[in-house]
Protein backbone atom coordinates (compact mmCIF):
# COMPACT_ATOMS: atom_id res chain seq x y z
CA UNK A 1 0.00 0.00 0.00
CA UNK A 2 2.67 2.48 1.05
CA UNK A 3 4.82 1.38 -1.86
CA UNK A 4 2.01 2.12 -4.26
CA UNK A 5 1.52 5.66 -3.00
CA UNK A 6 5.27 6.19 -3.25
CA UNK A 7 5.15 5.07 -6.86
CA UNK A 8 2.28 7.40 -7.49
CA UNK A 9 4.28 10.28 -6.01
CA UNK A 10 7.19 9.40 -8.28
CA UNK A 11 4.98 9.43 -11.35
CA UNK A 12 3.53 12.79 -10.37
CA UNK A 13 7.00 14.16 -9.78
CA UNK A 14 8.13 12.89 -13.15
CA UNK A 15 5.11 14.44 -14.82
CA UNK A 16 5.74 17.73 -13.04
CA UNK A 17 9.40 17.91 -14.08
CA UNK A 18 8.43 17.00 -17.61
CA UNK A 19 5.89 19.81 -17.63
CA UNK A 20 8.31 22.38 -16.22
CA UNK A 21 11.02 21.41 -18.66
CA UNK A 22 8.61 21.64 -21.59
CA UNK A 23 9.53 24.64 -23.78
CA UNK A 24 5.85 25.61 -23.80
CA UNK A 25 5.72 25.84 -19.99
CA UNK A 26 6.38 29.62 -19.61
CA UNK A 27 3.68 30.18 -22.21
CA UNK A 28 1.30 28.01 -20.26
CA UNK A 29 1.89 30.09 -17.12
CA UNK A 30 1.26 33.29 -19.04
CA UNK A 31 -1.90 31.75 -20.43
CA UNK A 32 -3.22 31.09 -16.92
CA UNK A 33 -2.45 34.66 -15.82
CA UNK A 34 -4.18 35.99 -18.91
CA UNK A 35 -7.25 33.87 -18.30
CA UNK A 36 -7.49 35.38 -14.82
CA UNK A 37 -7.05 38.89 -16.22
CA UNK A 38 -9.71 38.27 -18.82
CA UNK A 39 -12.04 37.07 -16.13
CA UNK A 40 -11.33 40.27 -14.21
CA UNK A 41 -12.13 42.54 -17.16
CA UNK A 42 -15.08 40.53 -18.36
CA UNK A 43 -16.91 38.78 -15.54
CA UNK A 44 -18.86 36.51 -17.81
CA UNK A 45 -15.67 35.32 -19.52
CA UNK A 46 -16.27 31.69 -18.63
CA UNK A 47 -19.88 31.75 -19.73
CA UNK A 48 -20.64 29.49 -22.68
CA UNK A 49 -21.54 32.33 -25.04
CA UNK A 50 -18.29 34.20 -24.51
CA UNK A 51 -16.18 31.06 -24.71
CA UNK A 52 -17.87 30.20 -27.98
CA UNK A 53 -17.30 33.64 -29.47
CA UNK A 54 -13.66 33.47 -28.40
CA UNK A 55 -13.31 30.09 -30.08
CA UNK A 56 -14.70 31.61 -33.24
CA UNK A 57 -12.27 34.51 -33.11
CA UNK A 58 -9.12 32.53 -32.25
CA UNK A 59 -9.46 29.43 -34.41
CA UNK A 60 -8.02 30.91 -37.63
CA UNK A 61 -4.91 32.11 -35.80
CA UNK A 62 -4.54 28.81 -33.93
CA UNK A 63 -4.65 26.91 -37.22
CA UNK A 64 -2.24 29.35 -38.86
CA UNK A 65 0.12 29.01 -35.90
CA UNK A 66 -0.03 25.19 -36.17
CA UNK A 67 0.95 25.47 -39.83
CA UNK A 68 3.74 27.89 -38.98
CA UNK A 69 4.96 25.58 -36.20
CA UNK A 70 5.29 22.61 -38.55
CA UNK A 71 7.23 24.72 -41.04
CA UNK A 72 9.47 26.31 -38.41
CA UNK A 73 10.25 22.99 -36.71
CA UNK A 74 11.43 21.71 -40.10
CA UNK A 75 13.94 24.58 -40.17
CA UNK A 76 12.05 26.79 -42.61
CA UNK A 77 9.61 29.66 -42.09
CA UNK A 78 6.59 30.90 -44.01
CA UNK A 79 5.97 34.60 -44.13
CA UNK A 80 3.31 34.19 -46.80
CA UNK A 81 0.73 32.46 -44.58
CA UNK A 82 -1.13 35.72 -43.93
CA UNK A 83 -1.61 36.71 -47.53
CA UNK A 84 -2.34 33.11 -48.49
CA UNK A 85 -5.34 33.52 -46.15
CA UNK A 86 -6.18 36.83 -47.86
CA UNK A 87 -6.03 35.11 -51.21
CA UNK A 88 -8.29 32.32 -49.97
CA UNK A 89 -10.98 34.68 -48.65
CA UNK A 90 -10.88 36.93 -51.74
CA UNK A 91 -10.96 34.07 -54.23
CA UNK A 92 -13.78 32.18 -52.53
CA UNK A 93 -15.93 35.18 -51.65
CA UNK A 94 -15.58 36.41 -55.23
CA UNK A 95 -16.71 33.15 -56.84
CA UNK A 96 -19.25 31.96 -54.31
CA UNK A 97 -22.96 31.65 -55.02
CA UNK A 98 -25.74 29.92 -53.07
CA UNK A 99 -25.27 26.67 -54.96
CA UNK A 100 -21.52 26.17 -55.41
CA UNK A 101 -20.20 26.65 -51.86
CA UNK A 102 -18.39 23.34 -51.49
CA UNK A 103 -16.93 23.35 -54.99
CA UNK A 104 -15.50 26.83 -54.35
CA UNK A 105 -14.11 25.86 -50.94
CA UNK A 106 -12.46 22.88 -52.61
CA UNK A 107 -11.05 25.13 -55.34
CA UNK A 108 -9.72 27.59 -52.76
CA UNK A 109 -8.10 24.77 -50.81
CA UNK A 110 -6.44 23.42 -53.94
CA UNK A 111 -5.07 26.90 -54.69
CA UNK A 112 -3.64 27.11 -51.16
CA UNK A 113 -2.26 23.58 -51.45
CA UNK A 114 -0.51 24.35 -54.74
CA UNK A 115 0.48 27.95 -54.04
CA UNK A 116 1.33 28.00 -50.39
CA UNK A 117 2.26 24.34 -50.01
CA UNK A 118 3.75 22.99 -53.21
CA UNK A 119 5.23 26.24 -54.55
CA UNK A 120 6.85 27.40 -51.29
CA UNK A 121 7.93 23.83 -50.58
CA UNK A 122 9.48 23.53 -54.03
CA UNK A 123 11.42 26.79 -53.71
CA UNK A 124 12.59 26.18 -50.16
CA UNK A 125 12.98 22.40 -50.21
CA UNK A 126 14.03 21.48 -53.73
CA UNK A 127 15.68 24.69 -54.94
CA UNK A 128 17.13 25.39 -51.44
CA UNK A 129 16.24 29.07 -51.62
CA UNK A 130 16.34 31.15 -48.43
CA UNK A 131 12.91 30.59 -46.82
CA UNK A 132 12.56 34.07 -45.33
CA UNK A 133 13.14 36.03 -48.48
CA UNK A 134 11.42 33.49 -50.74
CA UNK A 135 8.19 33.40 -48.75
CA UNK A 136 8.43 37.16 -48.58
CA UNK A 137 8.31 37.12 -52.39
CA UNK A 138 5.42 34.65 -52.55
CA UNK A 139 3.66 36.77 -49.93
CA UNK A 140 3.87 39.72 -52.33
CA UNK A 141 2.55 37.47 -55.08
CA UNK A 142 -0.47 36.28 -53.05
CA UNK A 143 -1.10 39.85 -51.94
CA UNK A 144 -1.11 41.09 -55.54
CA UNK A 145 -3.42 38.32 -56.73
CA UNK A 146 -5.84 38.81 -53.82
CA UNK A 147 -5.90 42.56 -54.40
CA UNK A 148 -6.46 42.05 -58.13
CA UNK A 149 -9.38 39.70 -57.53
CA UNK A 150 -10.96 42.03 -55.01
CA UNK A 151 -9.53 45.57 -54.70
CA UNK A 152 -12.18 46.33 -52.07
CA UNK A 153 -13.43 44.09 -49.28
CA UNK A 154 -16.68 42.39 -50.16
CA UNK A 155 -17.90 39.43 -52.18
CA UNK A 156 -20.68 37.08 -51.26
CA UNK A 157 -20.85 34.28 -48.71
CA UNK A 158 -24.20 32.47 -48.41
CA UNK A 159 -25.96 32.88 -45.10
CA UNK A 160 -26.37 29.19 -44.43
CA UNK A 161 -22.63 28.73 -44.84
CA UNK A 162 -21.37 31.39 -42.46
CA UNK A 163 -24.13 30.54 -40.01
CA UNK A 164 -22.64 27.06 -39.82
CA UNK A 165 -19.65 28.56 -38.02
CA UNK A 166 -21.98 29.60 -35.23
CA UNK A 167 -23.81 26.28 -34.72
CA UNK A 168 -23.27 23.91 -31.83
CA UNK A 169 -22.37 20.38 -32.79
CA UNK A 170 -24.22 17.78 -30.66
CA UNK A 171 -25.87 20.69 -28.87
CA UNK A 172 -22.82 21.89 -26.97
CA UNK A 173 -19.61 21.87 -29.03
CA UNK A 174 -18.86 25.10 -30.90
CA UNK A 175 -18.26 24.38 -34.59
CA UNK A 176 -14.72 25.88 -34.66
CA UNK A 177 -13.78 23.63 -31.73
CA UNK A 178 -14.69 20.64 -33.90
CA UNK A 179 -12.49 21.96 -36.72
CA UNK A 180 -9.65 22.42 -34.25
CA UNK A 181 -10.15 18.89 -32.97
CA UNK A 182 -9.96 17.56 -36.52
CA UNK A 183 -6.78 19.56 -37.13
CA UNK A 184 -5.17 18.16 -34.00
CA UNK A 185 -6.14 14.62 -34.99
CA UNK A 186 -4.69 15.13 -38.47
CA UNK A 187 -1.43 16.37 -36.94
CA UNK A 188 -1.16 13.54 -34.44
CA UNK A 189 -1.48 11.09 -37.33
CA UNK A 190 1.32 12.82 -39.25
CA UNK A 191 3.38 13.03 -36.07
CA UNK A 192 3.48 9.24 -35.91
CA UNK A 193 4.71 8.77 -39.47
CA UNK A 194 8.37 8.84 -40.47
CA UNK A 195 7.75 12.43 -41.58
CA UNK A 196 6.80 13.39 -38.03
CA UNK A 197 10.04 11.94 -36.66
CA UNK A 198 12.34 13.28 -39.37
CA UNK A 199 10.99 16.82 -39.31
CA UNK A 200 12.70 17.40 -35.94
CA UNK A 201 15.95 15.84 -37.12
CA UNK A 202 16.00 18.01 -40.24
CA UNK A 203 15.22 21.14 -38.26
CA UNK A 204 17.78 20.68 -35.52
CA UNK A 205 20.72 19.33 -37.49
CA UNK A 206 20.43 19.40 -41.23
CA UNK A 207 23.83 17.90 -41.99
CA UNK A 208 23.40 15.19 -39.39
CA UNK A 209 19.98 14.31 -40.77
CA UNK A 210 21.41 14.21 -44.29
CA UNK A 211 24.27 11.92 -43.39
CA UNK A 212 21.94 9.55 -41.57
CA UNK A 213 20.07 9.08 -44.83
CA UNK A 214 17.12 11.42 -44.38
CA UNK A 215 16.03 13.17 -47.55
CA UNK A 216 16.27 16.70 -46.18
CA UNK A 217 14.82 18.56 -49.13
CA UNK A 218 11.88 16.15 -49.32
CA UNK A 219 11.06 16.55 -45.62
CA UNK A 220 11.18 20.32 -45.90
CA UNK A 221 9.01 20.21 -49.02
CA UNK A 222 6.53 17.98 -47.17
CA UNK A 223 6.50 20.34 -44.19
CA UNK A 224 5.22 23.15 -46.39
CA UNK A 225 2.74 20.88 -48.15
CA UNK A 226 1.32 19.42 -44.94
CA UNK A 227 1.18 22.85 -43.33
CA UNK A 228 -0.89 24.07 -46.27
CA UNK A 229 -3.69 21.73 -45.14
CA UNK A 230 -3.92 23.73 -41.92
CA UNK A 231 -3.63 27.03 -43.79
CA UNK A 232 -6.61 26.02 -45.93
CA UNK A 233 -8.56 25.10 -42.77
CA UNK A 234 -7.66 28.48 -41.27
CA UNK A 235 -8.87 30.10 -44.49
CA UNK A 236 -12.23 28.34 -44.26
CA UNK A 237 -12.67 29.45 -40.65
CA UNK A 238 -11.64 33.01 -41.47
CA UNK A 239 -14.04 33.15 -44.40
CA UNK A 240 -16.89 31.85 -42.25
CA UNK A 241 -16.17 34.27 -39.42
CA UNK A 242 -15.82 37.34 -41.69
CA UNK A 243 -18.49 36.31 -44.20
CA UNK A 244 -16.61 38.28 -46.85
CA UNK A 245 -13.27 38.52 -48.61
CA UNK A 246 -10.62 41.12 -47.79
CA UNK A 247 -7.01 41.24 -48.97
CA UNK A 248 -5.99 43.29 -45.91
CA UNK A 249 -6.85 40.52 -43.46
CA UNK A 250 -3.56 38.72 -44.06
CA UNK A 251 -1.20 41.36 -42.76
CA UNK A 252 -1.51 40.52 -39.11
CA UNK A 253 -1.46 36.75 -39.63
CA UNK A 254 2.04 36.80 -41.12
CA UNK A 255 3.59 38.14 -37.97
CA UNK A 256 1.10 36.79 -35.43
CA UNK A 257 1.58 33.20 -36.56
CA UNK A 258 5.34 33.55 -36.07
CA UNK A 259 4.85 35.36 -32.77
CA UNK A 260 2.49 32.63 -31.53
CA UNK A 261 5.11 30.03 -32.33
CA UNK A 262 7.82 31.96 -30.49
CA UNK A 263 5.60 32.53 -27.46
CA UNK A 264 4.78 28.82 -27.50
CA UNK A 265 8.43 27.98 -26.94
CA UNK A 266 9.27 26.78 -30.43
CA UNK A 267 12.79 27.76 -31.45
CA UNK A 268 12.93 29.85 -34.61
CA UNK A 269 16.09 27.98 -35.58
CA UNK A 270 14.01 24.83 -35.94
CA UNK A 271 14.02 21.34 -34.52
CA UNK A 272 12.53 22.20 -31.16
CA UNK A 273 9.05 22.66 -29.69
CA UNK A 274 5.61 21.20 -30.10
CA UNK A 275 2.41 21.97 -31.92
CA UNK A 276 0.72 22.31 -28.52
CA UNK A 277 3.09 25.21 -27.88
CA UNK A 278 1.85 26.96 -31.01
CA UNK A 279 -1.75 26.55 -29.81
CA UNK A 280 -0.85 28.02 -26.42
CA UNK A 281 0.94 30.90 -28.15
CA UNK A 282 -2.03 31.66 -30.40
CA UNK A 283 -4.40 31.57 -27.40
CA UNK A 284 -2.17 34.01 -25.55
CA UNK A 285 -2.19 36.47 -28.45
CA UNK A 286 -5.96 36.12 -28.73
CA UNK A 287 -6.50 36.73 -25.03
CA UNK A 288 -4.23 39.77 -25.08
CA UNK A 289 -6.28 41.22 -27.92
CA UNK A 290 -9.34 40.49 -25.81
CA UNK A 291 -7.91 42.42 -22.87
CA UNK A 292 -6.91 45.32 -25.12
CA UNK A 293 -10.48 45.37 -26.39
CA UNK A 294 -12.27 45.04 -23.05
CA UNK A 295 -9.94 47.35 -21.14
CA UNK A 296 -11.38 49.96 -23.53
CA UNK A 297 -8.01 50.95 -24.96
CA UNK A 298 -8.58 53.74 -27.48
CA UNK A 299 -8.48 52.71 -31.14
CA UNK A 300 -5.42 54.91 -31.60
CA UNK A 301 -3.47 52.77 -29.12
CA UNK A 302 -4.53 49.33 -30.35
CA UNK A 303 -1.99 48.98 -33.16
CA UNK A 304 0.79 50.05 -30.84
CA UNK A 305 -0.34 47.77 -28.02
CA UNK A 306 -0.63 44.73 -30.27
CA UNK A 307 2.79 45.34 -31.82
CA UNK A 308 4.37 45.97 -28.44
CA UNK A 309 3.01 42.68 -27.08
CA UNK A 310 4.78 40.83 -29.87
CA UNK A 311 8.03 42.74 -29.40
CA UNK A 312 7.98 42.06 -25.66
CA UNK A 313 7.27 38.38 -26.31
CA UNK A 314 10.16 38.19 -28.77
CA UNK A 315 12.46 39.92 -26.30
CA UNK A 316 11.51 37.51 -23.53
CA UNK A 317 12.15 34.62 -25.86
CA UNK A 318 15.65 35.97 -26.51
CA UNK A 319 16.65 36.70 -22.91
CA UNK A 320 18.00 33.20 -22.12
CA UNK A 321 20.38 33.46 -25.08
CA UNK A 322 21.51 36.90 -23.94
CA UNK A 323 22.21 35.66 -20.42
CA UNK A 324 24.14 32.73 -21.83
CA UNK A 325 26.29 35.06 -23.95
CA UNK A 326 26.94 37.29 -20.92
CA UNK A 327 28.28 34.32 -18.99
CA UNK A 328 30.47 33.22 -21.87
Amino acid at each position, binding site marked *: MSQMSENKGGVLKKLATRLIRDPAFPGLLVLIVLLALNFYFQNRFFSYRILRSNFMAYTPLILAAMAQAIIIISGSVDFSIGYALSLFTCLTAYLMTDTNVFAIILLGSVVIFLGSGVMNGFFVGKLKMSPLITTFATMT*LFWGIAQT*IMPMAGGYVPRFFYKTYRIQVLGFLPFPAVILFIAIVIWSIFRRTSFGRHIYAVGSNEDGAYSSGINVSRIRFMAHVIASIFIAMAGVCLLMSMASGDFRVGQEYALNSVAAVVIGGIALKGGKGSIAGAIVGALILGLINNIIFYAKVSAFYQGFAK*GMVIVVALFFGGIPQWLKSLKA
Partner: protein
Amino acid sequence: MVATILQDRVATAFMLLFGLIIFGSIINPGFLSFLQIMNILQASFFLGLVALGQTVVVISGKEGLDLSVGGMLTVGMFVGAAVLNGNDAYLIPAFFAVIAAGFMLGLVNGFGVSYLGIAPLIMTFAWYLVIMGLMLIVTKGRIVGESSPFLSLLGQGSCVFNVGSGCIQIPWVVPIWIVIIAIVSYIMKSTALGATLYGIGANDRAAKLLGIKTKRFRMLVYGVSGALSALSGLFLLGFVNNPNMSMEAKAGYMISSIIAVLIGGIEFNGGQGRYLGAVAGSIFLVTLTSILRTMQMADGSRRIITAIVLLVLLIAYTRRKEGA
Protein backbone atom coordinates in the same frame (compact mmCIF):
# COMPACT_ATOMS: atom_id res chain seq x y z
CA MET B 1 32.75 39.31 -72.53
CA VAL B 2 29.15 38.60 -71.58
CA ALA B 3 30.34 36.08 -69.05
CA THR B 4 32.63 38.60 -67.33
CA ILE B 5 29.82 41.15 -67.14
CA LEU B 6 27.50 38.51 -65.65
CA GLN B 7 30.18 37.73 -63.08
CA ASP B 8 30.02 41.32 -61.85
CA ARG B 9 26.73 41.73 -60.04
CA VAL B 10 26.72 45.52 -60.28
CA ALA B 11 27.25 45.40 -64.04
CA THR B 12 24.43 42.87 -64.28
CA ALA B 13 22.17 45.21 -62.35
CA PHE B 14 22.93 48.09 -64.71
CA MET B 15 22.35 45.80 -67.70
CA LEU B 16 18.94 44.88 -66.29
CA LEU B 17 18.18 48.57 -65.85
CA PHE B 18 19.34 49.31 -69.38
CA GLY B 19 17.15 46.54 -70.76
CA LEU B 20 14.15 47.86 -68.88
CA ILE B 21 14.68 51.38 -70.20
CA ILE B 22 14.85 50.03 -73.77
CA PHE B 23 11.66 48.07 -73.12
CA GLY B 24 10.03 51.24 -71.75
CA SER B 25 10.98 53.32 -74.76
CA ILE B 26 9.57 50.67 -77.10
CA ILE B 27 6.23 50.76 -75.27
CA ASN B 28 6.21 54.53 -74.94
CA PRO B 29 8.42 56.37 -77.48
CA GLY B 30 8.59 59.54 -75.34
CA PHE B 31 10.02 57.55 -72.43
CA LEU B 32 13.67 58.27 -73.09
CA SER B 33 13.51 62.08 -72.80
CA PHE B 34 15.97 63.92 -70.59
CA LEU B 35 13.17 65.32 -68.44
CA GLN B 36 11.67 61.87 -67.87
CA ILE B 37 15.04 60.40 -66.91
CA MET B 38 15.61 63.21 -64.41
CA ASN B 39 12.13 62.66 -62.95
CA ILE B 40 12.91 58.98 -62.48
CA LEU B 41 16.27 59.75 -60.87
CA GLN B 42 14.60 62.22 -58.53
CA ALA B 43 12.01 59.67 -57.44
CA SER B 44 14.69 56.98 -57.13
CA PHE B 45 16.72 59.05 -54.69
CA PHE B 46 14.29 58.54 -51.80
CA LEU B 47 14.21 54.79 -52.37
CA GLY B 48 17.96 54.81 -52.94
CA LEU B 49 18.65 56.27 -49.52
CA VAL B 50 16.39 53.71 -47.84
CA ALA B 51 18.08 51.00 -49.89
CA LEU B 52 21.45 52.19 -48.56
CA GLY B 53 20.34 51.34 -45.03
CA GLN B 54 19.01 48.02 -46.30
CA THR B 55 22.33 47.36 -48.08
CA VAL B 56 24.36 47.92 -44.94
CA VAL B 57 22.08 45.65 -42.90
CA VAL B 58 22.12 42.88 -45.50
CA ILE B 59 25.92 43.02 -45.82
CA SER B 60 26.24 42.73 -42.03
CA GLY B 61 25.04 39.13 -42.41
CA LYS B 62 23.13 36.63 -40.24
CA GLU B 63 20.10 36.93 -42.54
CA GLY B 64 20.13 40.66 -41.88
CA LEU B 65 17.08 42.52 -43.16
CA ASP B 66 15.28 45.66 -42.08
CA LEU B 67 11.53 45.66 -42.61
CA SER B 68 11.03 48.70 -40.42
CA VAL B 69 12.46 51.14 -43.00
CA GLY B 70 9.00 52.46 -43.87
CA GLY B 71 8.34 53.20 -40.20
CA MET B 72 11.66 55.03 -39.84
CA LEU B 73 10.89 57.00 -42.98
CA THR B 74 7.53 58.07 -41.56
CA VAL B 75 9.17 59.05 -38.27
CA GLY B 76 11.72 61.08 -40.24
CA MET B 77 8.95 62.92 -42.07
CA PHE B 78 6.98 63.76 -38.95
CA VAL B 79 9.92 64.66 -36.73
CA GLY B 80 11.32 66.85 -39.50
CA ALA B 81 7.99 68.58 -40.05
CA ALA B 82 7.40 69.11 -36.34
CA VAL B 83 10.82 70.66 -35.74
CA LEU B 84 10.87 72.76 -38.93
CA ASN B 85 7.28 73.93 -38.88
CA GLY B 86 7.89 75.82 -42.10
CA ASN B 87 10.91 77.71 -40.80
CA ASP B 88 14.34 77.48 -42.44
CA ALA B 89 16.07 78.53 -39.22
CA TYR B 90 15.43 75.10 -37.69
CA LEU B 91 16.95 73.17 -40.58
CA ILE B 92 20.04 72.00 -38.71
CA PRO B 93 18.21 71.00 -35.50
CA ALA B 94 15.66 69.18 -37.67
CA PHE B 95 18.43 67.31 -39.47
CA PHE B 96 19.97 66.12 -36.21
CA ALA B 97 16.62 65.35 -34.60
CA VAL B 98 15.63 63.17 -37.56
CA ILE B 99 18.96 61.33 -37.61
CA ALA B 100 18.83 60.79 -33.84
CA ALA B 101 15.25 59.52 -33.88
CA GLY B 102 15.95 57.07 -36.69
CA PHE B 103 19.17 55.91 -35.08
CA MET B 104 17.61 55.31 -31.64
CA LEU B 105 14.66 53.41 -33.09
CA GLY B 106 17.03 51.39 -35.23
CA LEU B 107 19.11 50.47 -32.19
CA VAL B 108 16.10 48.64 -30.72
CA ASN B 109 16.06 46.45 -33.83
CA GLY B 110 19.78 45.97 -33.46
CA PHE B 111 19.55 45.00 -29.81
CA GLY B 112 16.84 42.43 -30.51
CA VAL B 113 18.67 40.95 -33.48
CA SER B 114 22.21 41.07 -32.20
CA TYR B 115 21.96 40.41 -28.46
CA LEU B 116 18.66 38.52 -28.19
CA GLY B 117 19.12 36.50 -31.37
CA ILE B 118 15.68 37.29 -32.80
CA ALA B 119 15.36 36.66 -36.54
CA PRO B 120 15.82 40.08 -38.22
CA LEU B 121 12.80 39.68 -40.47
CA ILE B 122 10.51 39.14 -37.51
CA MET B 123 12.12 41.61 -35.14
CA THR B 124 12.10 44.47 -37.63
CA PHE B 125 8.58 43.75 -38.85
CA ALA B 126 7.18 43.72 -35.31
CA TRP B 127 9.07 46.92 -34.55
CA TYR B 128 7.64 48.44 -37.74
CA LEU B 129 4.12 47.79 -36.43
CA VAL B 130 5.02 49.36 -33.08
CA ILE B 131 6.50 52.46 -34.73
CA MET B 132 3.49 52.95 -36.98
CA GLY B 133 1.23 52.46 -33.95
CA LEU B 134 3.29 55.01 -32.05
CA MET B 135 3.02 57.50 -34.91
CA LEU B 136 -0.74 57.07 -34.90
CA ILE B 137 -0.85 57.79 -31.16
CA VAL B 138 1.38 60.83 -31.41
CA THR B 139 -0.25 62.38 -34.46
CA LYS B 140 -3.82 61.10 -33.93
CA GLY B 141 -3.88 60.85 -37.72
CA ARG B 142 -3.50 64.61 -38.14
CA ILE B 143 -0.84 66.44 -40.11
CA VAL B 144 1.54 68.28 -37.82
CA GLY B 145 4.04 70.80 -39.17
CA GLU B 146 5.37 71.27 -42.67
CA SER B 147 8.53 71.47 -44.71
CA SER B 148 10.59 74.67 -44.88
CA PRO B 149 11.29 76.60 -48.12
CA PHE B 150 14.92 75.50 -48.38
CA LEU B 151 14.13 71.83 -47.73
CA SER B 152 11.37 71.98 -50.32
CA LEU B 153 13.83 73.48 -52.78
CA LEU B 154 16.21 70.56 -52.14
CA GLY B 155 13.43 67.99 -52.31
CA GLN B 156 11.55 69.16 -55.39
CA GLY B 157 13.57 71.95 -57.01
CA SER B 158 16.14 71.76 -59.79
CA CYS B 159 19.30 73.61 -60.64
CA VAL B 160 18.94 75.20 -64.04
CA PHE B 161 21.76 75.59 -66.57
CA ASN B 162 21.29 77.72 -69.63
CA VAL B 163 22.78 75.92 -72.60
CA GLY B 164 22.54 77.87 -75.83
CA SER B 165 18.91 78.51 -76.56
CA GLY B 166 17.44 75.96 -74.15
CA CYS B 167 18.14 75.10 -70.53
CA ILE B 168 18.92 71.91 -68.64
CA GLN B 169 17.21 71.20 -65.33
CA ILE B 170 18.79 68.78 -62.90
CA PRO B 171 16.90 68.06 -59.66
CA TRP B 172 19.00 69.00 -56.61
CA VAL B 173 18.69 65.52 -55.15
CA VAL B 174 20.66 64.07 -58.08
CA PRO B 175 23.99 65.77 -57.21
CA ILE B 176 23.26 65.11 -53.53
CA TRP B 177 22.83 61.42 -54.31
CA ILE B 178 26.04 61.33 -56.36
CA VAL B 179 27.95 62.80 -53.41
CA ILE B 180 26.39 60.24 -51.05
CA ILE B 181 27.26 57.39 -53.42
CA ALA B 182 30.87 58.61 -53.62
CA ILE B 183 31.23 58.91 -49.83
CA VAL B 184 29.61 55.54 -49.18
CA SER B 185 31.72 53.81 -51.82
CA TYR B 186 34.84 55.27 -50.26
CA ILE B 187 33.87 54.22 -46.74
CA MET B 188 32.93 50.71 -47.79
CA LYS B 189 36.02 50.16 -49.91
CA SER B 190 38.85 52.00 -48.24
CA THR B 191 38.21 52.38 -44.53
CA ALA B 192 38.43 50.11 -41.51
CA LEU B 193 34.71 50.66 -40.96
CA GLY B 194 33.87 49.16 -44.34
CA ALA B 195 36.27 46.28 -43.84
CA THR B 196 34.69 45.52 -40.47
CA LEU B 197 31.21 45.52 -41.99
CA TYR B 198 32.19 43.03 -44.70
CA GLY B 199 34.16 41.06 -42.14
CA ILE B 200 31.34 40.43 -39.70
CA GLY B 201 29.02 39.69 -42.61
CA ALA B 202 31.30 37.16 -44.22
CA ASN B 203 32.47 35.38 -41.09
CA ASP B 204 31.19 36.52 -37.75
CA ARG B 205 33.33 34.12 -35.74
CA ALA B 206 36.56 35.07 -37.49
CA ALA B 207 35.78 38.76 -36.97
CA LYS B 208 35.20 38.06 -33.28
CA LEU B 209 38.54 36.27 -33.03
CA LEU B 210 40.18 39.33 -34.54
CA GLY B 211 38.89 41.30 -31.57
CA ILE B 212 35.94 43.01 -33.23
CA LYS B 213 32.92 43.46 -30.98
CA THR B 214 30.63 41.92 -33.58
CA LYS B 215 27.44 42.10 -31.53
CA ARG B 216 27.80 45.77 -30.77
CA PHE B 217 28.80 46.53 -34.36
CA ARG B 218 25.78 44.70 -35.75
CA MET B 219 23.49 46.55 -33.36
CA LEU B 220 24.91 49.87 -34.58
CA VAL B 221 24.40 48.79 -38.18
CA TYR B 222 20.65 48.62 -37.56
CA GLY B 223 20.84 52.06 -35.97
CA VAL B 224 22.53 53.40 -39.09
CA SER B 225 19.84 51.86 -41.27
CA GLY B 226 17.17 53.57 -39.17
CA ALA B 227 18.97 56.91 -39.41
CA LEU B 228 19.30 56.64 -43.20
CA SER B 229 15.62 55.79 -43.68
CA ALA B 230 14.65 58.68 -41.42
CA LEU B 231 16.92 60.97 -43.45
CA SER B 232 15.19 59.79 -46.59
CA GLY B 233 11.93 60.73 -44.86
CA LEU B 234 13.28 64.24 -44.27
CA PHE B 235 14.09 64.67 -47.98
CA LEU B 236 10.72 63.17 -48.86
CA LEU B 237 9.12 65.80 -46.66
CA GLY B 238 10.83 68.39 -48.83
CA PHE B 239 9.34 66.64 -51.86
CA VAL B 240 5.73 66.51 -50.63
CA ASN B 241 5.71 69.47 -48.17
CA ASN B 242 3.42 67.84 -45.58
CA PRO B 243 4.07 64.66 -43.62
CA ASN B 244 1.85 61.73 -44.46
CA MET B 245 1.36 58.41 -42.66
CA SER B 246 0.15 56.38 -45.61
CA MET B 247 2.95 57.51 -47.93
CA GLU B 248 5.43 54.75 -47.10
CA ALA B 249 2.88 51.98 -47.52
CA LYS B 250 1.67 53.38 -50.85
CA ALA B 251 5.21 53.65 -52.15
CA GLY B 252 6.04 50.24 -50.67
CA TYR B 253 9.49 51.14 -49.34
CA MET B 254 9.72 47.92 -47.32
CA ILE B 255 9.43 45.59 -50.27
CA SER B 256 11.07 47.91 -52.79
CA SER B 257 14.24 48.42 -50.77
CA ILE B 258 14.67 44.66 -50.43
CA ILE B 259 14.17 44.06 -54.14
CA ALA B 260 16.55 46.93 -54.95
CA VAL B 261 19.22 45.22 -52.86
CA LEU B 262 18.49 41.89 -54.50
CA ILE B 263 18.68 43.32 -58.02
CA GLY B 264 21.92 45.00 -57.02
CA GLY B 265 23.44 41.59 -56.46
CA ILE B 266 23.92 42.00 -52.73
CA GLU B 267 23.66 38.52 -51.32
CA PHE B 268 21.39 37.80 -48.38
CA ASN B 269 24.08 35.63 -46.81
CA GLY B 270 25.95 38.86 -46.12
CA GLY B 271 29.55 39.91 -46.42
CA GLN B 272 29.34 40.81 -50.06
CA GLY B 273 27.90 43.39 -52.46
CA ARG B 274 28.23 47.07 -53.29
CA TYR B 275 25.91 50.01 -52.79
CA LEU B 276 26.18 50.92 -56.47
CA GLY B 277 24.22 47.75 -57.21
CA ALA B 278 21.41 48.85 -54.93
CA VAL B 279 21.45 52.24 -56.68
CA ALA B 280 20.87 50.47 -59.99
CA GLY B 281 18.18 48.38 -58.27
CA SER B 282 16.39 51.45 -56.95
CA ILE B 283 16.36 53.15 -60.34
CA PHE B 284 15.22 49.86 -61.90
CA LEU B 285 12.22 49.63 -59.58
CA VAL B 286 11.15 53.24 -60.01
CA THR B 287 11.47 52.85 -63.78
CA LEU B 288 9.42 49.65 -63.66
CA THR B 289 6.70 51.34 -61.60
CA SER B 290 6.67 54.26 -63.99
CA ILE B 291 6.33 51.96 -67.01
CA LEU B 292 3.55 49.98 -65.36
CA ARG B 293 1.78 53.24 -64.47
CA THR B 294 1.86 54.43 -68.07
CA MET B 295 0.36 51.03 -68.93
CA GLN B 296 -2.49 51.92 -66.52
CA MET B 297 -1.90 48.96 -64.25
CA ALA B 298 -3.74 48.62 -60.95
CA ASP B 299 -1.98 48.23 -57.58
CA GLY B 300 -2.66 44.50 -57.46
CA SER B 301 -1.20 43.75 -60.88
CA ARG B 302 1.83 45.91 -60.13
CA ARG B 303 2.38 43.89 -56.98
CA ILE B 304 2.12 40.60 -58.93
CA ILE B 305 4.72 41.76 -61.44
CA THR B 306 7.02 42.96 -58.65
CA ALA B 307 6.70 39.56 -56.97
CA ILE B 308 7.46 37.73 -60.19
CA VAL B 309 10.56 39.87 -60.78
CA LEU B 310 11.66 39.13 -57.23
CA LEU B 311 11.10 35.38 -57.59
CA VAL B 312 12.86 35.14 -60.95
CA LEU B 313 15.90 36.99 -59.57
CA LEU B 314 15.94 34.82 -56.45
CA ILE B 315 15.81 31.64 -58.51
CA ALA B 316 18.47 32.90 -60.92
CA TYR B 317 20.88 33.93 -58.16
CA THR B 318 20.36 30.72 -56.18
CA ARG B 319 20.86 28.58 -59.26
CA ARG B 320 24.00 30.41 -60.24
CA LYS B 321 25.48 29.94 -56.81
CA GLU B 322 24.76 26.22 -56.98
CA GLY B 323 26.40 26.05 -60.40
CA ALA B 324 29.53 27.86 -59.26
